[in-house]
């Protein structure tokens, strides 16, 4: 009986989790059948212009952003730059790349820093401009901003050989009118 109850609870939890994941996926995607009017914008992965890397696979990118990989092939230390929790860009990354929740991500980094697997905690910046400037100033930095926030001071990486403008690029962020207004204010 106890086993049965545990099985049912597990199924229920899985269903809830599935529902949550589905909803988040719908939010970050291009216009879908569920929300055909939604507007999306690609999320660009940016590095310093001196960085020799120009292409990463989704798996490599995930490794880097989880802190599992600490140095670039050139020997430079990798510095992760992230937006504050709750920001759409961070949510999109959580959904599309990390595929974990905010708390899981926090736990992951806390655990990694505690065990010494992760050497430096990610830098949290308030604005997209801050992210861009940080990447510009730090040769080993990697971060993410909307494609519209990119300028010539940083370099945009290909992910799975696709640039943000290319069809099939995975990292996309759904924005609404209200959010657009908020961004306009932020900029």
């Amino acid at each position, binding site marked *: 009986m106890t086993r049965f109850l545990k099985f049912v609870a597990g199924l229920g939890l899985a269903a809830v989790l599935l529902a949550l994941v589905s909803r988040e996926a719908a939010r970050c995607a291009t216009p879908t059948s569920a929300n055909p009017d939604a507007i999306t914008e690609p999320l660009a992965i940016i590095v310093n212009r001196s960085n020799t890397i120009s292409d990463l696979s989704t798996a490599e990118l995930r490794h880097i952003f989880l802190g599992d990989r600490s140095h670039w092939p050139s020997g430079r230390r990798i510095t992760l730059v992230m937006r504050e929790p709750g920001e759409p860009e961070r949510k999109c990354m959580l959904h599309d790349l990390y595929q974990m929740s905010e708390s899981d991500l926090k736990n992951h980094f806390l655990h990694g820093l505690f065990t010494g697997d992760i050497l430096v905690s990610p830098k*949290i*910046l308030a*604005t997209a401009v*801050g992210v861009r*400037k940080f990447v510009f*100033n730090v*040769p080993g930095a990697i971060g993410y901003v909307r494609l519209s926030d990119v300028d010539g001071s940083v370099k945009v990486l290909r992910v799975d050989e696709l640039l943000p403008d290319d069809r099939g690029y995975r990292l996309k962020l759904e924005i609404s009118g209200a959010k657009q207004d908020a961004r306009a204010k932020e900029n």
Partner: protein
Amino acid sequence: MRARKKTETGANTGKLVQALDRIIGTVLPQYTALVLVLVFCVVAIVGSFVMRDLETANTSAENMYRVSVQGLLQVGEMQYFAQETRRATLYALTTNDSNLQLDYADQTRDADRQVTRAIADYRHEADMPGQVELANRLSRDWAEYLSIRDEVLASILEGSTKEAVTLDLSGGVPSFERVKQDLNEVRQLYDQQASQRLANVVATSRRSALRLIGTLGFTFLLSMGAVWAIQRSRMLGAIQLAKLQMDFVASVSHELRTPLAVLNSAADNIADGLVTGKTEIQRYGAMIRNQSRQMNELVEQILLFASADDRSERYVFEPLTVNQILDAVEKSTKELVDGSGVVIERRVEPDLPPVMGDLPAIILCLRNLVGNAVKYGSSENKWIGLTASRGVSANRTHEEVLISVSDRGMGIDRLELAHIFDPFYRSPRVVNMQIHGTGLGLSLAKRIAETMGGDLTVVSEISVGSSFTLHLPALERNEVEMRPASAQPTSLPQR
């Protein structure tokens, strides 16, 4: 010996002063305005040079100020922004907030851009070898510091504070010290250049001041010289006039005294009963009459001269034929001519037009000329030419009748020709020869000629003779017809 030298020097100076006086006396009375214009032109030219000089000095001073002050300001700005670059980098070390660190990163980059631009300007403007070398070194050291600063900044942003401090201490501090040293050298170089420019400006100003003093002194001396020359000229003129008047008084006294002495002597002889017999009395009477007439003529001439200026209104202008004039002149001078044994040769061009004038005045004018021809004519060749011909006025506007009185006497010096019509003027040569006269005859004759609307000219050559020509405007035929037969007082014909 010394006294002799002194005497010679004095004599030379006297000659120089005399020569100077001659030049001043000859040139200045006629060209005073020209001299003043010349002085004005010289002063204007000198003034323009002085102004240009002052302008150059001012421009030099302005350039010196601009270059030096701007240079020092540029160095000051470079030093300030270099410190700002470093200060903002070090401030980034004091916080763990990445957003704040980014603000400091922005500040340090803004400041370093200012320094980089100022260094580029300095390199561009550098023209001296030392300056170019210093500019290149500064640029190199600054680039080196910036590369270390970038590393330090990256370490700070990465969160590696310890690494950033180590990097800054090992590389940032020494390279920044080199930059500071370079900037100090730039400042010293500017100071040296400013001192050099200041010295140049001071030297230029001194030269300008000396030139200004020199030119002002020269202008002052020139002006004083001109004023002195003009005053001297006037003084010489006044002295000459006074001398002429003194000579005139002496001459008149002498001219009066001679007949007076004759009259006195004759009167004494008659009163003392020394003159007896009809023939003797007749001779004495004729002598007294001649002397009285001579005195009367002299006094009349003086009075005529004195009143010649306002006499034109009292002249009676009438049409006169040339023969009418010449007959009257010959008649008037018959006694004088006969007495001196001179022969008058009269030549008149046929069909001469009549002239308009006052007959007594014209006779007086020509009688003076004939009297002079008798007085200064040759003692061997006692000949006087009295000719009349047709001519054209100097400005070629009307026809003239020319009546010339010529002699073959001593002639007049070329230098004296300009003065013979001056009142009271008597040639030193005739004074020395003790030929009596008042110096008024020619002046009076010229005034009469001009009052008649004509002129009196002279052509003369030493030891050859002189020829005085009276120019009288000719009357046209219609003018003659329109005039009444009787002579009426009239004004001077307008020409």
